[in-house]
């Protein structure tokens, strides 16, 4: 019997409110094929259709059950919209398929298996977890929870599990948390905003990589063949995304997510957002990153369509759609890949910018097809995000690491690279042997956090073998000792308060075991450490019992329900009475 590695399955392309000609826009996606248990429950994703509001556990069976490696049919392709909406089986399959697709996109981009953030291989997904305008990733419960709630103006329900962007967003939280566990540490408004921003970027690009969605943007009626060249300018595209898609996103689902898409096309380049106090709030800051990336998507898309414009100023709509979806897909890949090139602690947008430029450079050193890097570099700067690295080879990309100074050369001959690809202790030895060349803090606790060999494949079939290692350094000292490290002690911080400094690097080895990059933030970077201390002190993170970071659930909720709530400064105000910043959960 032949083995089919992938199967096709019908999903709702974005959400049921996105329609053409009165019909929900659907699409078929390809996901890994596997023998599913009822749920569906597979090797990475387990759907448990339990509704805690009504205390109901549905018996969901994948139809038809594929108890073999056969190529299963796509049973939902022929069902009517009304049938799809009324079928818990379809809901379960839709959410399963999109979580699997998001996981596959990460695995493809990174060129290896990608683990969830928790111990355990299978994430639990509850498609109708509660009657509530909410959806979130809960690491403690190893789960993605999607709510449902009645429509306000018409009959029927809004389902989080039928919204592509919501599912991709939550799945991204679960994957990013697994890739970079320190990104949820309190550090700076940028690190706090990154999780949300990155999840939005993946969600939006994932939706735009669906041809049917792009087609809907360019032609709401679904009937036209040719389109006018005046519709493929940057301005026109922003406008049609806004009216053709973003408004409807807002219509039903803003109760869950706000409207990231709308914000991303209305925050225009050319303003120094990051120095505007208005953008100090983490979510707002995250939106700047999203807008910068979506701006690149639009720029490249517009550029790619130019050759297809006929002398009569028209172009083939289908061509335009394909270009859009392809650009989104490519951009999605390099954005995900960029995570490997990010420092493991205290991330700022400028680091992500360098990481993204580098990830593209590694894969497409010539950059002829899309001219992405040019646009990325331009766009980041236009949004005030200046890449951390100047870039000796190309603007903004990380530089190869110095091979040490004359007293301390980087040494390779005391370790074996074959071992280093899987053995944490061997990698640690390499780091230890080179602690002087790498200018590490010798007093800090140092630990290898991950070792990940990968084989990355480009659009052109080119493969790139790399091994990605993360290590972190952690140093707990008294506030009075900060001075010794030239770090400014925040005003009012007691001398004997214990503070922990973090540093850490991502090391990228090439296939021969030579170090290509060694990027990170050092404990000795006094400027950054001072900034971090000041921020954390100001926002009360050093008070005993202060929580790590607001849980994803309440982060989303806060965004929605928080109008009229005090901002950070005011919160810091009354916490002076108090030990903590965030109201913790009730637990007995």
């Amino acid at each position, binding site marked *: 019997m032949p083995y089919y590695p992938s199967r096709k399955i019908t999903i709702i392309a974005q959400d049921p409110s996105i329609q053409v000609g009165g019909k929900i826009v659907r699409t078929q996606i390809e996901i890994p094929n596997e023998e599913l248990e009822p749920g569906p429950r597979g090797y990475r994703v387990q759907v448990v259709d339990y509704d805690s509001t009504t205390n*109901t*556990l549905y*018996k969901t069976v994948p139809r038809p059950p594929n108890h073999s490696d056969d190529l299963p049919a796509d049973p939902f392709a022929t069902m009517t919209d009304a049938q799809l909406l009324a079928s818990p089986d379809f809901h379960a399959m839709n959410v399963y398929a999109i979580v699997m697709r998001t996981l596959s996109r990460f695995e493809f981009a990174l060129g290896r298996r990608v683990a969830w953030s928790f111990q355990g291989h299978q994430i639990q997904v509850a498609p109708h977890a509660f009657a509530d305008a909410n959806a979130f990733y809960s690491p403690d419960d190893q789960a993605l929870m999607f709510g449902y709630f*009645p429509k306000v103006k018409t009959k029927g329900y809004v389902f989080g599990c039928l919204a592509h962007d919501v599912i991709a967003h939550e799945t991204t939280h679960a994957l990013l948390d697994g890739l970079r566990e320190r990104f949820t540490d309190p550090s700076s408004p940028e690190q706090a905003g990154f999780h949300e921003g990155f999840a939005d970027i993946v969600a939006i690009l994932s939706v735009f990589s669906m041809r049917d969605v792009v087609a809907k943007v360019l032609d709401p009626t679904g009937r036209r063949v040719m389109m006018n060249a005046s519709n493929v300018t940057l301005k026109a595209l922003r406008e049609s995304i806004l009216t053709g898609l973003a408004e409807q996103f*807002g219509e039903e689902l803003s109760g869950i997510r706000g409207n990231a898409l709308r914000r991303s096309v209305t925050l225009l380049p050319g303003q120094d957002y990051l120095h505007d106090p208005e953008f100090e709030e983490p979510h707002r800051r995250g939106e700047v990153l999203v807008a910068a990336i979506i701006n690149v998507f639009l720029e490249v898309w517009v550029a790619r369509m130019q050759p297809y414009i006929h002398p009569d100023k028209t172009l083939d709509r289908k061509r335009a759609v394909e270009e859009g979806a392809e650009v989104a897909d490519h951009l999605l890949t390099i954005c995900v890949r960029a995570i490997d090139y990010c420092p493991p602690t205290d991330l700022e947008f400028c680091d992500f910018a360098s990481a993204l430029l580098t990830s593209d450079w590694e894969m497409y050193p010539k950059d002829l097809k899309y001219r992405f890097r040019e646009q990325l570099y331009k766009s980041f700067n236009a949004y005030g995000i200046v890449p951390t690295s100047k870039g000796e080879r190309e603007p903004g990309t990380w530089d190869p690491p110095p091979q040490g100074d004359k007293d301390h050369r980087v040494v390779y001959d005391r370790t074996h690279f074959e071992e280093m690809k899987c053995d944490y202790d061997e990698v640690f030895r390499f780091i230890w042997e080179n602690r002087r060349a790498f200018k590490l803090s010798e007093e800090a606790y140092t630990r290898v956090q991950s070792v990940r060999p990968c084989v990355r494949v480009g659009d052109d079939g080119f493969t790139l073998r790399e091994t990605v290692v993360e290590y972190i350094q952690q140093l707990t000292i008294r506030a009075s000792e900060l001075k010794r490290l030239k770090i400014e002690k925040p005003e009012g911080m007691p001398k004997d308060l214990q503070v922990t400094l973090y540093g850490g690097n991502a090391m990228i080895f090439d296939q021969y075991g030579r170090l290509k990059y060694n990027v990170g933030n050092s404990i000795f970077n006094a400027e950054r450490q001072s900034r971090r201390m000041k921020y954390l002190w100001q926002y009360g993170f050093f008070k005993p019992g202060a929580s790590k970071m607001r849980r994803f659930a309440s982060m989303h909720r806060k965004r929605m329900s928080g109008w*009229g709530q*005090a901002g950070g400064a005011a919160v810091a105000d009354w916490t002076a*009475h108090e030990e903590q910043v965030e109201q913790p959960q009730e637990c007995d």
Partner: protein
Amino acid sequence: MAKIQVKKSAVTAAKKVTAKKAASKKTPAKKVAAKPAAGKGPVKLTLRAYNVGFGDCFLLTFEYPKFKRRILIDYGSTAAPKNADDDYMMAIAKDIEAQCTDADGVARLDAVVATHRHRDHISGFSTEGDNTGGVIARMNPGLVIQPWTEDPEAQPKADEATATTFTGGKPDAKAFIASLHNMNRMAGAIAEASRDEHLGLSTKMASQMGFLGDNNLPNKSAVVNLMEMGKKGRAAYVNAGSKSGLEPVLPGVTVHVLGPPNLKQTQSIKKEKDRDANEFWQFAAFWQFQAAAGESVDLKVPLFPAAEAHEVHAIPANVRWFVGRAQKIRGEQLMELVRSLDTAMNNTSVILLFQVGGKSFLFPGDAQIENWQFALSQEPVKEMLKSVDVYKVGHHGSLNATPKSLWALFEHKHETPAPDRLTTVVSTKPGKHGSVQSHTEVPRSTLVAELQKESEYFSTQDLLKSQICKEYEFEL
């Protein structure tokens, strides 16, 4: 600052109260510049802080040479004082009536302030049950003061409250008030859910959730009674900076309304101007969705009634762990929701500052930091707050209703007894709200410690069963 004789005593419920003479009047109050026409003001203010358990009820009696004026600030309870008789609220109504009775045998209450629509502040105005609200109404309060959010003119119609289309327009009062109504609706659903056994809530958590849910129910009878009393006399729906309506009632007394801010005022202190419309829309939509979600779901009927489901007792072993977790998450989510709507409602509280005879009395209801922010952004207001002599501790002593920036302004704080030492009084009952473990218990121990250290502090929880209230007398 004038030296003022302050006499405080706990008053027993049993005996009729006789006016207490101040021990001496050797130091007449100095007039401050702000005080209007000398001789027209009151000579004494009596403040009674009733023991309503968890709730607020304060009676202010201003004694003028020839008459008295009485103001009732809040009258509600959600949890009886310990060992209280069943009719403790009626006993308080009767005591208020006695206090308000003039020599001619007629009980006269001049004004009622309902700081916000929480049950623990207005339940006594209800005309249901033993009809304590009727006792108050009989005294014909000529003025009812409530926050602008209660203005009947600004109320959305029933269909607007449940099915308004939020189009992302500018913040508007009706949409905001609709959100408050939606919170009331959601509270009902949450109070209901707190009794759901399958959510596996601990007894403590279920009772907290039920408590907060109940406190945020619509309180229809009390709301209607307040509105009717307002119609009969005058009604003032106030916001920061507006007139209190007390001007003719209290000659020689200046009353400042410091909160709640209206929408414009709230926005004026926000940095994020361009986002307001959007955020406002999200806020309104959020509560609309929540209320709809909470109400629409009949707990007995599953979302897909036709779909096959497992029997409750036959949940497969491989998903039992997750089902348990999902139930727990739901409990936590509901708790979080009910807390945030409780906060939003608290922030509609009227904040009143009375200035009389060189003394200042501050009554902030349950206002939390978000309400206070506007007042605290105004320099002249900050200036006035410095000289507060009596502070009704906000929100039953919760941690987030006495902003540190407010507390820091008070200049009459002293660690040791002093003639002009700040008086603080809190009406509260422990064990009802928040938890010690999460440092959110009400009253909050760290705040109480600070109040005890720096001021003449009293909590109604320390009243004995035989004491109906704590009485203060201030010579003016």
